[in-house]
């Protein structure tokens, strides 16, 4: 039977390197994907993923298996990515940006009929989604990412983001609505599927 992540983490705390390797094998992809979504470039994603595992290793002895490992993992990873993104922003001279999470709210207008499902088949369409996602305010993007891409429950997301359930619910909902607004262009006729490169 495979060890659970929580058990592996306890073994890591006792200095079990094989357990650490196994843990990395399991979570490396998730770490890089998450970080890539935060930064949008491979190098920074790789760096952040690496740093996350180093922090996990060093903090293993402090890890209490009361929460799920995934929650702990995304907390460490999320903090790191946020810190780095802010540092990068400061370096780029933008200064701290006030988040507009609670300011903007487009109401979703219902289309006349059911629109065809949006497509993400071509490079162009993927670029559009990428842009739309990267333009989301940080909290919206993070909550939505954890939900859609990592499959976390609202409760887990709240733990990771150190927020309450109501906030998580709002962020996810607003994130989806904004994207719906941005991605309306994607909904196209069926033939577009053929134009995949």
């Amino acid at each position, binding site marked *: 039977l495979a060890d659970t992540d929580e058990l592996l983490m306890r073994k890591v705390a006792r200095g079990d*390197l094989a357990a650490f390797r196994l843990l*990395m094998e399991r979570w*490396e992809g998730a770490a*890089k994907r998450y970080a890539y979504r935060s930064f949008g*470039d491979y190098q920074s994603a*790789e760096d952040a993923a690496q740093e996350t595992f180093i922090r996990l*290793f060093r903090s293993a002895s402090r890890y209490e298996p009361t929460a799920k490992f995934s929650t702990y993992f995304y907390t460490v990873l999320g903090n790191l990515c946020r810190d780095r993104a802010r540092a990068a922003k400061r370096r780029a001279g933008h200064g701290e940006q006030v988040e507009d999470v609670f300011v903007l709210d487009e109401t979703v207008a*219902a289309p006349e009929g059911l*629109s065809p499902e949006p497509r993400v088949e071509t490079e162009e369409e993927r670029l559009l989604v990428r842009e739309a996602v990267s333009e989301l305010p940080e909290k919206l993007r993070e909550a939505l990412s954890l939900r859609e891409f990592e499959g976390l429950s609202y409760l887990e997301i709240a733990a990771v983001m150190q927020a309450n359930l109501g906030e998580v*619910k709002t962020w996810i909902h607003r994130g989806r609505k904004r994207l719906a607004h941005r991605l309306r262009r994607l909904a196209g006729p069926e033939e577009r599927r053929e134009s995949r490169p």
Partner: protein
Amino acid sequence: VNHPCPRFEPELSAYLDGETSAALAAEIDEHLRGCDACRAAVAQLRDVSRTLRRWDAHETRYAASTGFRNRVFAKVGADGVAPRSDVVWRIAAAAALVAVGAGGFALVVPRLRPDEHAQYEALAEEVGALKAALREPRAAAPGRASDPFVQETTPLARPEPLGRVVAAPDSADAPPAPQPVAEIWEQRGDERFLREALPEHDTYTRERRILALEEQAQKMQAALAGKQGRETSAPAAPPSPLATFLGELRVAETNFSPYEQVQVWPIELVGPRSADRSRAVPCADAIAQEILAVTEGASRESVVAVNNDAKRSVLVLAGDVLAGGKQDRVAREDVLVAPGQRLSIPTYTCGRERERTSYVTFRHSDGLATPDLRAMVAADQALLSGGVGQDQFDDAVSRTVKALASTSRLGSLDNLYSNPQLSDAAERLMKKFEKRLEGPSVVGFAFAAGSQILGVDVFGDHATFVDHRARVLRSYVMAAIAMDRPEGVPPARSVVADVVAAAPKSAFHADAASGSGTLSVFRGADGGAFGFGILDTTRVVHAVLFTSVPAGVDATAARGGRRNPGDVTPPLDGGGHGSGSSSRGNSGEGGGVEAK
């Protein structure tokens, strides 16, 4: 324009995610039945959700890599190198040391006991020689006796007694890039790369070099130790395990009637059966689950595959379509990739080159090429001729693509599997046939469209078959659809039974290593039927039989062993893109290579 009701609107995402209370969910259910605006809003939210997930699957498929883990271990100051075969690892480490000079990257030097230093130094020297050999194509041939590499290794020849990080200034340690850059291109040699893809490209280039070194080292070892081994693999072999396996196959006693002139017969395995457990993860699943990482190889003729799983083998079938990289590929032979193994897989390209991209990763594998193409690849690689070659394969691909999807001018086989109309047609046929193939002793099937038997595909046991069933069946169904109205009526069961019964009486040829498995090929006594099987030691994992040589394949050409038995693994060329894989015996220029 209708707006969703303010009372429910804020709850709709949570409702979609199953994150509302049961009472509220019931209330919303009830409300949606009567409210068009809210229903549309839910549909829209669901679309966003789906779009995101699909986009993500395309966008951020990262392969796990040992390079990454080693870098983390280096930083935490631990020697976490996986217990590989000792010598191979040391060679890799030495090769990595060597590469530091040129590429500059970090790697953990394995702990060495004092008495291992001499051994290590000898190894470093060996790698130096290997690297010199690797450079040979570029260097002028006469001057190679003097080793130009010695100077480069000297500063690194003596490692510290304990594990120590050897880190050249590593770009991975630099702080994150200050701003997201749009599209910045950089020139590397004679190719242009997107800057953000460069690190990935460099890593893969380095890994490929090390792989080439490893393989050369293995070959050297084989050359040293394996002179007697060569004699044991002489033609006068005991009965092939593949022949024995084929002898235990029976066409099931059924009376299914054909459907739209297509007929599928279940094939059962009789006689003593080994434990029924799945032997290998199908290529597509392995890529989707990030068990198998596939990247561009040294040339268009191969890809590099790494099995990142600790336990499961991966089976790549001849004909598996690998989508991604600069150009989609089709695997040219069955390859069994053992846990942790990294190797090269021979391929043809099967799609248009992606311009302005520097992708090196193959992100998914939707399908398996149709049986005519698989037969072509099999004939090419296995035993019949010097190879159909890329051009002829391209023609065959475009014929198939044209027959199946006239609207598509893109030429990649991958498009066939993402075409919704085709998929629907295929699903409909598959539903008819899949039910027949469920019996516990069924390990494969024979497939006929019209009067033509397209092929017989069998696996080592039922569990392995079940894993691969849908994919393999779909490839046949696609072929049947491409034939539009197949001519003639499907043959009787007895005809198929004869074909299967004749298989073990074929001429079996010298086995060759393919990944961790062994590829065994055969040709029917009458010269028409042929096929191959991939074996895990002596156990058959997958075998396929085609009843006739595909049109265009020169069946009269050499039919010797498919490659030099001394070639333990398909070697990789250490050069850059397009340098060509010079070491593959029959990749297009010559005839089947006879054993020396």
